[in-house]
């Protein structure tokens, strides 16, 4: 079992957007997909997923619709809206930029400074 990482503040929203960008998912499905993509390395408290989902829906980035799950039960499926797609893109760019800047700083050797 790999060492589990606590989620950075504010990154849960981005992960949810990524998860639903691949196709509509219900809440439990979002949880599974994140765990799957991260190779079971991320630890999310299951319940705390929902306030995040509702917040994203509140902001109009994802939208929920009731449908049938695999085991024929009613479930609420979330998908990315156009606004959500734009938001996800800009968040991704920001994140990548920041990551590269920070990586650059951490990589720097004494001579360079």
């Amino acid at each position, binding site marked *: 079992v790999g060492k589990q990482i606590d989620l950075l503040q504010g990154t849960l929203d981005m992960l949810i957007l990524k998860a639903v960008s691949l196709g509509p998912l*219900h*809440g*439990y499905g979002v*949880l599974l997909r994140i765990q799957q993509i991260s190779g079971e390395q991320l630890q999310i*408290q*299951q*319940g*705390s997923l*929902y*306030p*995040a989902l*509702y*917040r994203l*829906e*509140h*902001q*109009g980035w994802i939208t929920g619709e*009731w449908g049938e*799950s695999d*085991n024929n*039960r*009613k*479930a*609420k499926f979330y998908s990315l809206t156009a*606004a959500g797609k734009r938001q996800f893109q800009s968040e991704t760019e920001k994140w990548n930029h920041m990551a590269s800047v920070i990586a650059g700083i951490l990589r720097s050797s004494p001579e360079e400074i």
Partner: protein
Amino acid sequence: MNLLARLRSWLKWVVKRQRLESDLEAEVRFHLDSYAGELVRSGVPAAEAVRRARIEFGGIESHKDAIRASVGLRWWDDLWGDLQYGARILWKSPGFTSIAVVSLALAIGANTSIFSLANQLLYAQLGVPHPEQLRLLTIIASEHSVVHSSWGSVSPAAGGGTRFASFTYPIYQQLRKESHVLDDIFAFKENIQANATIDGAAQAVRLELVSGNLYEQMGVRPVLGRPILPSDDQAPGTGAVATISEGLWERAFGKSPDAVGKVITVNMTPVTVIGVNPRAFTGAMSVQSSADIFMPLSMIPVVKGELGTSGPLLSSSEIWWVQLMARQKPGVPVEQARAALNVAFSAAIHATMTVAKNDTIPRLDLEDGSRGLNFYGKHFARPVYVLLAVVGFVLLIACANIANLMLARSSARQREMSVRLALGAGRGRIMRQVLTESLMLAAIGGAVGLFLGYLSRTALPKLLLNAWEREGMKVPFDWKVFSFTAGVTLATGVLFGIAPAWNATRAEIGTAIKDGGKASTKKRKGWSGRTLVAFQVALSTMLVFGASLFVRTLINLDAVDVGFRADNLVLFDLNPPNKQYPAPKDIALHARVEQALRDVPGVEGVTLTDIPLLANSVSESDFSVEGAPKTNEPHGEGSGAMQSTVGQDYLSVMGIPIVAGRNFRAQDVEAPQRFSIVNQALARKYFPKQNPIGRRFTMDDSNTKNRSWLEIVGVAADTRYANLQQETPPLHFDLYRQSKDIGGATYVVRTRLKPDAIVPSLRAVVQDIDRDLPLLGVRTQRQQINGTISQERVFASLTATFGILALALACVGIYGIMAYAVSQRTNEIGIRLALGAERGQVQGMVLKEAGRLAAVGVVVGIAVALGLGQLVKSMLYGLRPSDPASLVGAAVVLLGVALLAGWVPAMRASRVEPMEALRHE
């Protein structure tokens, strides 16, 4: 974009709360079931799987709360809770709630209506673009000025001399040509009564004549048709066109677009309606009411042919009658414009008229014209300021009352606050709760106040008008004023609600709960409440004292002996148009009407006069006795006499006794010798210790050849003349049929019938003689008299109402503070009683305290009232502003009310059972 999405989502949650909550429930259940199912598939026993699913999910309710917060429902839920709690609290203490609401409502309502009225009367501007640019041209004339005869209102100027707003027409034209410091000067003549026939119906209308450039300069576009143009205002007598007010359009044409192009007659002259004014445009005269019909100045011969002997008005250089206004030119300072205009004015006087050796040239002034001639503003300024002060005091009393109630209440709730703090409520949360409650109270009070203000909006202007006048003034409901007064009272409520709550939440929880607000010794914290009550009493004393002054003034006026039998007299005016009835045809017409009216069944006597008694009208005459030394003193106060031109039955119809000599006789009217009857005041002044009968006097200037002499045949008893306030002036009655002209006159009919019953037959008789002659201003003599004191009446009733209101509020304030004090001191009183105090002593203790509070307030109130009384001196009659009866009365009433208000708590205190009080915590 994002905000919109959030708002939409929030609204969805608020509206479909129940469904979304159950959806959320289902979603969580689905999650738990799915996870548990997976655990079961991986070999965990079913019961254990469900348990683990729940544990790993975390606290369901706290997650749900987080969800609600994330969609912005937290504050909404809190607010809703606060509102429900607040409503319950307010409902539980109906006494407190209703007193607070009524105080708020009355203060807001009274202030809104009086301030709106004041705003409309004193500050409203003409409904034209940029009214602040308008300047009114006025003249300040000293004695012996070139202005010998004017038509229009004249008032004393602030720095001495006389102020006119009237010019001769030739001077207007000269000024307009010469002046380059103002925009094009425009002219108008306002407030002309005329008879109009519209669609066959004769009615009285008010005219305003305007110069052809007025509409253009004012910047007014009619809502229908076209404005009056310079081309309409050309040669005298041409330009038979009219624009009408929106009011007349509605009244006479039912707002029909066909009104434009209709031909109406004004004083028998056909005039074509060319346009309808917008509602906001009230002409150049006043903001409060509009003339009905506007015509070019060139039409002046239709309404007023000639005045005196100086020829037609438009070419007369003797008569000063037309009002002038202009817009200020940008970049030209007023001082510069005034100086340049004075030069042009002086030149215009010399160019248009002959200036006698002793005549002085008046000074021209530029006044603010944004409110037109501003008659109301000048006439009502003092009473309106007094009313403003009065309602201002009422507002203060109401604020004090609310502050008091809030203070008492929140100290009583200190324990509750402490308990809630102890249970973990945040201070902000408690403050918000208190604030919600205060605002709820304020909102209810504000709503009721708004309603009251709205009701009085139409009632107040009616109070200022005479009963027989059509409603002429509109007071629009003033939202700015309403928000201001509402804001002030709300702020008071909130401030005095929040401040104690703030203190309460700062207190040590332990002591507050233990203390329970029932400490057995008096504490200093009571002082702010007591100060408020004393303040209230002081204000109420002032209002009650003021009300007493005005009520006693009214009583004194009502008790004045007018000197004639004022009951059973019906009055109406008849204004035969000058053009159709030039002298002496007017006299013949009146003689015919007078005779015809005598035969109407129910009529006991008919007469007419140019000056109805007690109607605020006067006619001065240059009275000089034959053979008396010629006085050199200038005309004005102390010289001359008043005059009434009357029918031969005047004295008997009015019921004025003859004290010497004889009454007029029927044959007098035909005699070559003119006769007159003088009153006792005149006899006393001009014939001291002499018999005036048989003496002769004249009203003609001493320069006139062939002066016309009147012989005194009788002396009549004194009567009031123009108003109830003034002592009888020297007055002589002359026969109209022996005069050169009379023009319009007021008919007086003595009848036992009700006006409604007799007027139709009177009207029929007049219309038999001239179909187009309407009866104007039908009223009884009593109404006429009441009309002259309507302002005093309004004042007495308003101040009395506010005085009673103030008393009620003060009563509530004293009761509240004493009841609170008694309840706080139950313990102490119990101990006193246990130690042997008499119940009477306890009662006395409470009453004494209430009395002391009231006494302080009364003393302060009376001191201030004595100072302020001087300001209303001119509005009183028959008493001084330091009227002792009113002073003593106000003090006694206030002390009585205070003791009454203290009585209930005092009784309650004396009924305290010592054992119970001591055991009671």
